């Protein structure tokens, strides 16, 4: 019988440390708070534009200044609907008058930071008080 009782307590014995372990998982908040750092002002936020190339194909363009590199990787900062920055890895083609053709990774009409700066990191909120250029050529 006592064995039976012992076994009945067994799950509880197991459950108690589990409960405590569950309580200690508070570091998830620290992650969130870090990403909710103070908003950063950026010089310009521009929309990804489209243009028609010499061959007649439609291409997407971003300013060359928006692009930054990590080794061989190429990226821009995309400003989301919630004004948060995300790093977007893209591939680029030829340059067209200070703009670069985007071959993959961006959609038309998405907003990117016009001039990337080392201070910018993924997850920060940008202040939208600065002018948003949205001129579509051609």
């Amino acid at each position, binding site marked *: 019988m006592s*064995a039976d009782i012992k076994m009945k307590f067994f799950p509880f014995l197991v459950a108690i440390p589990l409960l405590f372990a569950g309580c200690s998982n508070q570091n998830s908040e620290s992650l969130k708070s870090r990403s909710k750092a103070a908003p950063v002002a950026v010089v310009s936020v521009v929309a990804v534009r489209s243009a028609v190339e*010499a061959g007649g194909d439609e291409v997407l363009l971003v300013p060359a200044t928006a692009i930054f590199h990590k080794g*061989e990787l190429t990226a821009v900062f995309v400003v989301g609907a919630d004004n948060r920055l995300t790093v977007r890895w893209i591939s680029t083609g030829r340059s067209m008058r200070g703009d670069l053709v985007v071959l993959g*990774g961006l959609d038309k009409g998405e907003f990117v930071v016009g001039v990337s700066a080392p201070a910018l990191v993924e997850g920060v909120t940008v202040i939208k008080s600065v002018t948003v250029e949205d001129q579509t050529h051609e």
Partner: protein
Amino acid sequence: MNDGIAGKLAKQFINSKITPLLMVAALLVGIMATFMTPREEEPQIVVPMVDLYIPYPGATPAEVELRVAKPVERTLTEIPGVDYVYSTSMPDFAVVTVRYKVGEDAEKSMVKLWSTLMKNMDKMPPGVQFPLMKKVSIDDVPVLNLTFWSKTKDPFQLRKTAVGVADELKKIKNIGDVEIKGGLKRQVKIVLDKEKLRQFNVSPLQIARQVQLSNSQMRAGDFKQMNEEIIVRSGRFLENADDVANIVIGIYGSSPVYLRDVASVVDGPEEVNNYNFFGWAAAAPNGSASGEYPAVTLTVAKRQGSDASKLADKVLARVDNLKKGFIPADVTVTETRNYGATATDKVFTLLEHLIVAVVAVTIVVGFFLGWRGALVVFASVPITFALTLLIYYLLDYSLNRVTLFALIFVTGIVVDDSIIIAENIHRHFAMKRQPKLQAAITAINEVGNPTILATFTVIAAVLPMVFVSGLMGPYMSPMPIGASLAMIFSLLVALIATPWLAFRLLKTEEGHHEEYDITKTGYYRLFNTILSPFIESSFKRWIAFGVVGLMLAGAILLVPMKAVQMKMLPFDNKNEFQVIVDMPEGTALEQTARVTKEISAYLKTVPEVRSYQYYVGINAPINFNGLVRHYYMRQAKNMGDIQVNLVPKDERKAQSHDIAKKVRAGVQQIARRYNANAKIVEIPPGPPVLSTLVAEIYGPSQEQQIALARQVKKVFQETPGVVDVDWMVEDDQKVYDLVVNKERAAFRGVSAEQIAQTLRMSLAGMDVGVLHTDKELDPVTIQVRLPQSDRTSLHDLSTLFVQSQGMGTLTTRLRAGEMIPLSELVTVQEKIQEKSIYRKDLRRVVYVTADVAGATESPVYAMLNMDKKIEQLKVPGGYSVSPLYTASPASDEKLAMKWDGEWQITFEVFRDLGTAFAVVLVIIYLLIIGWFQSFKTPLIMMIAIPLSLVGIIPGHFVHGAFFTATSMIGMIALAGIMVRNSVLLIDFIQIRRAEGADLKRAVIESAAVRTKPIILTSGAVVIGSLVMLFDPIFQGLAISLIWGGVLSTILTLVVVPIVYYIVENKSSKP
């Protein structure tokens, strides 16, 4: 006195000095074996699987299928031991996968395959290249993954570090493959300048040829001079980018043209072809970096038969050492998989459970036999297990979940032999009829032979389970083998060690006298009141039978009512799962990376997720599931894998399966936005299959098959509980076919091959050699290619040039070397890429796959649910397609569908276990006939077997558990135990009747006397099984043993005596 085997053995050992030594030796050997046996979590499965890659450049899928896949398949199916042959015919090449039967020798299978293939290579059409054979085995699954990530370093630098570490690690003993996933390799890129090429009249093909020719060095031989051998060699290898840039590729005018004149030569990272990022998630350790960083994964596989945990420890120690110097301080090495640690963890948890089970059983025994008796039993169990562990080691079994559960499972059974012997010695000591030694030997003689019979009954019950075939076999077979071994050892221990221990430990206690008057005991009074009414009144008797019958029927009814669901194996609680992202075919790498990243960003917020790593354009390190599903081939630009690591299971409340279910909606919401297909892939608890639910669609033509598949897919999507629906039909991908105008090409002196090669070199790039450097561990390739900015449109391609070979006719003469623009020679046709053709066992098939979660967790119910809807589908021809369950359709003339996936294995396992059960019943019947010399009595005893269902099925209902394959094992094993109980009962009735007691009294007495040992043995089984209740997979086994054991025991004590009474009463009367 005539001694039996048991008595003889006992006489030899009861006073021998060697007995304690043997006991100690057995214990020590067992402990050593425990530490020496390789540990792993899941049992090793030897399923030789070989992938054949057969290139057939230029062929369409239909052509590849007809000329390559079909003939190869046909010859391969002839090889003995081949279980399945699958093939995929894609544009330009075929992949044929051969899967051998489980347990076939891998090396022999390879040899057979090789010779068969060679025999038939002459039948291959011209143009087919030599096949690449790759053996895929469980040892290819990495046991340790180390992720190198950094806030400052880029993928190129990370890869360099990882390659250096890999080279160091290769020196460790027993290490298998070390691979690097992700990162960018060093490459010398010859980036062509189209304008300059034209200006200097150089073609890309010329460059390729010149680089290849320049990159050679050769020993020309030697000559003799003045008694000396002098070696002559010529040429020089290319050693750096400058060497490459300075190659003379032609003459223009009167001056040489160097490669640097027409192209830029860059020594650096290759072009981006994958994205591999690592990030900490919500449940990361405190102070972890919050971003997402470029990563490279180093995967370590082990050699066959070696211990993963030992290897992992060695590797980690070496890496720690390297961190001091070789690995830069800003590169962090994070352990993202360690199967060694999880295996050790699992094995030690199970050993702990085993000890708990043994202690629990001992306490139960203590209640009945006193502490001395309990001690005898307690001492004999470790010896039994020590010997079994030794045999595991000798048979090359590993310590894993199944082998250890086999031990936990038999804990309650192995004590029985010792209990019976110890109890009888105890009884004889108490009777004091003989001197102590004589009493012990008499006691052993008395119960020795029945004990041997009982042991073999139980072995007979579990051993037929060895014959479970297919992938489930290796998961199952250690169970019956381990249990049978343990039973045999327990018998030996009971006959050798127990008497020695009992003789010394058990006291001839005073005052504890034998109860001679059985009618005064509580048991007798109890059974007298219970059994008498039924024995006396046949009316009451039939009511009792009716009640028992109703209970049985009610219990069985729970199954069709879906109160208890059948499933092969429930989900285990793991520390990881994967998300597989499939974008439509033809999606750019960056777009796939973007979607994968967004899904990862969502997973990052899930509170139980510790870290994640995503791989785009390259497969994540595979696990056993991925191995069977061919996830190692997921290297296309439209594919992404996310590896999600959870907090260790003891630090979270939710089971991994529940977490996977929870995140599915969020993941798929993001995926839908981008028209992607995202699947949550969990590690299956048993053998992996293509997908939980698979509908194989056969038919006369691919168009019809795809049309039906589309409808079936829709049915899947509309059925609640069916998730992650996908099919193996590619989306339409745009293809520009540049058709060579043959006449014009001929007039221009250009061959079609030249055009194809030039295009390939410009777009995909062409490796023209390697740099001969001794500093680099990864080979550094030299690649000729156009810059990315010059290959983005058809316009770019049409301005390429090819060099004329020269042509002369009566009217015109074209000199060799003239540059001809491609636009003159080709016309563009826009097409849709042909779809791959899948074949299984020599027939075309289209797969629709899905998983089940939520509304139903067992695929069988989802299948039954969808059957009706599928039958109503309209197909050309007006017949209805009714899904098949067990065999593929007889012909391809009509459209047909077969269920596969988990169902196929479930079906095989339950079929084999069912057969095993039938065999068990026959063997038990034979054994008892042999013992009792009656055809009727064994049938009465076997009544107890169906009675166990009264407990088993409602037991599963109470626990809310699935009736699984392990439940079935429990049921079969229980049959052996329950029959043994009946044997004990009826044996005693017959003894009493032989002594002259009347039937009724004999029946009641027997129930009263045998209750104690029956409850003791059944109780031991029940208590021993309690620890198993906490394991998700073996829960079913525990429930069967506990509930089935309790109810069957109670009913056996009542029903079996009554039935025996009726039968004997009838046969004695007339």
